[in-house]
């Protein structure tokens, strides 16, 4: 079946089985590989993208359910929050193996878009769906606080 998807502001016609997870359409069909596969059951958050601006586990949504909603992946991330988060990530040398970090960055940007000055508890609640097997959590937390600070004023 052919679906017309809006991904990172561009329209893509994809011919795939309707049950295909959005994740594999992004990675295998469109070729946007920044979004990662980690579990396939919405447990790890490595596949996080934005759907109409809200964070979504792309492994847990069939392509048939996307419709006209806009998809933003790590490759299409932009805006003040995104820049602040990615700058903070590099400044803190957050990544170790780096594989989960696309998803971590997406969730962090989603949090800062809604909560300008997140508490540690806010960070826990927003980021607990993103597993980092290297356990870079200390730096993820610090980088989110840094990013929030850099967005003030």
């Amino acid at each position: 079946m052919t679906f017309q998807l809006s991904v990172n502001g561009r329209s893509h016609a994809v011919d795939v089985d309707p049950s295909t997870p959005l994740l594999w359409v992004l990675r295998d069909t469109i070729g946007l590989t920044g979004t990662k596969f980690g579990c396939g059951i919405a447990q790890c958050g490595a596949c996080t993208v934005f759907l109409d601006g809200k964070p979504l586990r792309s492994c847990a949504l069939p392509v048939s359910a996307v419709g006209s909603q806009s998809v933003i992946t790590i490759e299409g991330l932009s805006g003040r929050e995104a820049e602040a988060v990615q700058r903070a990530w590099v400044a803190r040398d957050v990544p170790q193996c780096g594989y989960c970090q696309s998803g971590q960055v997406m969730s962090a940007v989603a949090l800062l878009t809604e909560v300008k000055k997140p508490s540690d508890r806010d960070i826990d609640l927003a980021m607990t769906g993103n597993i980092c097997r290297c356990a870079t959590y200390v730096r993820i937390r610090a980088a989110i606080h840094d990013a929030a600070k850099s967005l003030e004023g």
Partner: protein
Amino acid sequence: MLMQPMKSHQTVSRRGVVQGLGGLILAVALPGTAHAQSGAAQVLKGDGGAVAAIAPNAFVRIASDDIVTVLVKHIEFGQGPWTGLATLVAEELDADWSQMRAEHAPANSDLYKNFAFGMQGTGGSTAIANSFEQMRTVGATARAMLLTAAASAWNVPVGELTVDRGTIRHASSKREGRFGQFAEAAAKLPVPAKVPLKDPSAFTLIGRDDGSVKKLDSAAKSNGTAQFTIDIREPDMLTVVVARPPRFGGKVASLDAKEALAQPGVVDVKQISSGVAVYAQGTYQAMQGRSRLKITWDDSAAEKRSSDQLIEEYRALARKPGLVARQHGNVEAALKLADKALEAEYVFPYLAHAPMEPLDGFLRWDGNTAVARFGSQLQTGDHHAIAKVLGLPPERVQVETMLAGGSFGRRAQATMHLAVELAEAAKAIGPNRPMKLVWTREDDIHGGYYRPLFVHRLRGGIRDGRITAWSNTLVGQSFLRGSPFEKMIKDGIDATSVEGSKEIPYQVADFRCDLHTTDVSIPTLWWRSVGHTHTGYAVECFIDELLEATGQDPVSGRLALMDKAPRAAGVLRAVADLAGWKGPGPTNGRARGVAVVESFNTYVAQIAEVSDGGREGPRVHKVWCAVDCGIAVNPDVIRAQMEGGIGYGLGHVLFAEVSLDEGRPVQSNFDGYRSLRIHEMPEVEVRIVQSGEKPTGVGEPGVPPIGPAVANAMARLGLQRPRRLPIVRAVS
């Protein structure tokens, strides 16, 4: 690829000038200093004495745009060798950190062997230790050649030149130059036989901790551009998933692939030695195809015991003397003479490594040559395994190491099973079908190669308030047995089973450590910090219990027994100072537990502050950590590895277990094989102990102390030290 045939008149120890993307490149290749006597010629010579390529056989390239690229022989999966090895080169080269880059070296066992293994590979926290002199020598040699070229160009004595942060200067003539200007000329010079290395007091980048030596891979890993194996896409590439037997040792009895083959996008189905391979145009299609295979499995030779059954068998064995790994004095006599004898049994489950990126690999094979690209951790073994399956001489197989999404030991396979599966999948469908093999998370958790299940039985004797006897019987599988590394088993003892138990930092007069190696057909493997994953817990819990029984403080009681373990004592003192240790508490519902473990010649002590979280298990609020890893090359990487090691160790000690139900792994994904999450991560404070010793590794040593530190705190909260891991299972 930067390649050019070597001209016959060139000596093999001198690298030529090659035209690369950014201009002219100086490529310097040197053997490690430990093997300097073998000479560059021998190292670089292939079988026929011909040298095939220049740049790939190098450790550093300096381009005309001044970019210095270090070719790193160790795989980067988060532990920091790209940054670490680049720091070593940059230090001796006097480069500016901003001009440094890193990439993986190709597979070449002669040139890129890990001196600890004798072949190319990463593991045992060896990267910095074995590269420390080699990569500094590379940097110093490149510097010497650049200076010679500059002196010649400016017609000044080379001794009058200085280098600072990538700039070559001649003070009296006020001339300045950059590395890139002299790369071409330098490349034509003979490689100096011996170059002096800096005295550590002159280091400016090694040990620098002002935030200016940033990791080289952070940006690409923060914006999605870092390329992992799973990201490889090539025209006409097939994706392969494999249906493997539900029990280890099972075989395909019958296969009906009709429905699978009828799935859209499924291209073929082939039986290979590990199971049934499904080839499809995409990952989802391959998974869908696999789910429609009808396979009956022959389990006649499969392992059918359950974890609980294995544990009972192990516990019975632990009551019998095993093969002695080490003993002094007479422990049985001392136990009889003791005023008080304590006994404890600890049970450790099978653990999956569960790296974020499941196992995967890419292979292109045209019948005559092959290129494999994946997160190879033992490149030499993988290289030869692929060549053997494809029936090719190794020189016609190229292995390119990719960034890997974690490993924790999983990608260093004694049996090379991933490389074999990849090559078998290619061979089964025939040449000219480039393919990417992908394991799902279920494949990963069900896939074996676990940290082996272990049971420890400890007995201790106390007499006149002193610990007089220590007996530790271990029961578990050896993953070296039956592997190509079997010869590392000495006198029946697999050192990786007893490391940490065989030699403890505490002086006890009568001591014995013995081992029962069991015969279970569950594939097992080294897992981040290897034997110390269980020995650290058993030893550090039991010493704490004995000290508690004698009314001694966990810190000062340990220190009183550590006269012959000065570096272990050093980190223990340091962590006690860092945490402001005033005893274990509890204070305001929080207790503190301590543990100190040496692994891979790195010493780590940790203090964990813990409260009782009820059904949810212990809540770990803060961990103080002191580490002595010799000269600290990249302090922030060391801190990161301690933080990560604590998180990895804590998550598994709290939550993780692969249990077997009649031989079948029960857990299948992160819902059952629970991982530490951010709200469970403690605050971490790290102190790096100043040391002039040679650097040692940090990838693994952060892991072992956290479990016993938490357990020892739990004991002070009135909870028992958990005897069976994971802890949350024990609590609930």
